């Protein structure tokens, strides 16, 4: 088992904590938890890319990193005006 795979397995519970936090509590806390879970998910995808030695899957991490910007901005706008 490579160090990359061990690191990915060690990051997985951290992602679960972020996802569970995003599913509970007030809307404001959920918004912050979604940001936190997204950050960990990007790091996890990068580590998984090296663990399974699949260079093309780095695009998944890149896409998630780029899409988190408009996605979280829309959520922040909803939080500010309606939620």
């Amino acid at each position, binding site marked *: 088992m490579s160090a990359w795979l061990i690191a990915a397995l060690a990051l997985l519970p951290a992602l679960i904590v972020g996802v569970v936090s995003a599913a509970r509590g007030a809307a404001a806390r959920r918004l912050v938890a979604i940001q*936190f879970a997204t950050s960990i998910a990007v790091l996890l995808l*990068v580590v998984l890319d090296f663990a399974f030695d699949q260079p093309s899957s780095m695009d998944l991490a890149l896409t998630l990193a780029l899409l988190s910007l408009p996605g979280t901005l829309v959520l922040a706008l909803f939080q500010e005006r309606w939620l």
Partner: protein
Amino acid sequence: MNLAIDALLAFAVLMTWIGVLAFLRLRTNFERLHVITFVNIVAGAAITAAAVLHDGSSGRTFKCIFIWLVIATAGALLSHATSRALHLREGERR
């Protein structure tokens, strides 16, 4: 070289877990936003450094560096937008 990669990955995982504990421990959402920045910058830098040591100069490494730059800059913007939204919303409720 392998030892340095292992150490960097262990450091990244440790920093992420410190971030998780801080996220659960801190009380306000404004404080929690600092944790996100900490994980983005510190753990992201460690994983990027490990990727550079592992691959050297390759397309995958440059994508990894680009991802780190994106999450660092977008993270700052998102923290500002989120804290502004939370601040306005909490101001309305008072």
